[in-house]
């Protein structure tokens, strides 16, 4: 059986049941339990590590750790949040191991206090989600994200792509709620400018609609 989004209540109950069974020793069910989150787990690792190969390693290791420590999971927490938290910890640990402490400290020392002013005020509309069907568009968005400084990128990815809340993002990264908000604002505004530029360059044109019809 697959967890479906159609009936969240049923899916939640099924997840609880799976967790209990894995905790009781049916470890072969673990993949079924984590399958709905595997992309988020991978993306969480990528938010921190940037490199696809390292992110996959960290994601895999994090899920193995989750399996080994499944008995420590308490039902009060959301399983997805628990899993993402383990992943972020694993990724942060790997990053610390690989980078010099000095660089790390310098990079993450302070939030940029100067405010970010949006640059592009073109009159643009809602970009339809259908645009994401095109690999090229996803690629452009990923590239734009890649240009952000680490501290903005990781907050943005955990908050807006992993959908952790502000508090969870702060806890996962070991920074304050105020820092999360400051960095998130800046990340969103910077990406907005990059998107605006993309809008003008036609990233989002040639959408998969009927010839000659535009949805706006």
């Amino acid at each position, binding site marked *: 059986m697959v967890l479906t989004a159609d009936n969240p209540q049923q899916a939640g109950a099924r997840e609880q049941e799976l967790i209990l069974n894995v905790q009781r*020793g049916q*470890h*072969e069910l*673990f*993949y079924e339990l*984590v*399958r709905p989150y*595997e*992309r*988020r787990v*991978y*993306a969480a690792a990528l938010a921190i590590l940037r490199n*696809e190969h390292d992110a*996959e390693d960290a*994601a*895999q290791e994090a*899920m*193995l750790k989750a*399996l*080994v420590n499944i008995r420590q999971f308490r039902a009060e927490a959301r399983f997805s949040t628990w899993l993402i938290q383990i992943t972020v910890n694993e990724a942060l640990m790997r990053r610390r191991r690989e980078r010099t402490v000095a660089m790390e400290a310098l990079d993450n020392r302070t939030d940029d206090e100067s*405010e*970010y*002013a*949006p640059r*592009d*005020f*073109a*009159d*643009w*509309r*809602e*970009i339809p*989600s259908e*645009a*994401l*069907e095109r690999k090229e568009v*996803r690629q452009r*968005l*990923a590239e734009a*994200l890649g240009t952000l400084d680490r501290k903005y990128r990781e907050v*943005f990815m955990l908050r*807006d*792509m992993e*959908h952790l809340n*502000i508090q969870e993002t702060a806890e996962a990264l070991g920074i304050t709620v105020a820092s999360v*908000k400051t960095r*998130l*604002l800046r990340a*969103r*505004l910077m*990406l*907005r*400018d990059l*998107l*605006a530029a993309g809008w003008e360059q036609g990233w989002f044109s040639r959408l998969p609609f009927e010839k000659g019809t535009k949805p706006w």
Partner: protein
Amino acid sequence: MVNHETMNCEQVWREISNYVDGDVDAGLRASMNEHFKTCARCASVLAGTKNVVRLYGDERMLEVPAGFSQRLQKSLAKTAAVQGSRWSSWSAWLVPVAALVLIAGSVLLTNSLTGGRLLKSHHAEPANNIPPDLVVVVSDGAKLFHVPGCPFIHDKNTERTLTAKEAMAEGYVPCTRCLRQYLKTGVTLRPGDQGDDADADDKAEQGEVVGMAAR
């Protein structure tokens, strides 16, 4: 405090992320709404920020490398197998561990009831001001520790070298012959201990020392 009635663009930008998240109070929201109606620039910033949040928040932005799921399943299956065998044998190794704990506990209890010292021999005198780092020799089954080369070392084939401190921690007591200088002079045997729980080896060892001393 920001006067919401007359917010300028910078003030709006500062709150725009919270606004999109619904993390602003009703008064601030109302003021921002008013501002967006009349300010094309800020309306553009809002539209763009919403696009960013919506597009990047889409599941389709989370792509995994080809073969990711298969590799994950494989490594999970491997771990599941290891974990499974580990847990199924859990009760099997629990038994001897519990037995060991019980035995160790009863030994400690016996010792605590029989004088409070974990000395291997009650016939010998505990060390007196012995240098803790002095290199000494002990052997299995014996109860005394010796200066290396002492002729009264039993079971030389099981000889071990360690420090006096370690030897004492293991319950060994100083040889009355080679380490006599660290014993209180004149007291080698306590009359009360005679024959109570001494075993043959202990008697033999002590006897030999006394015999040598007499020679």
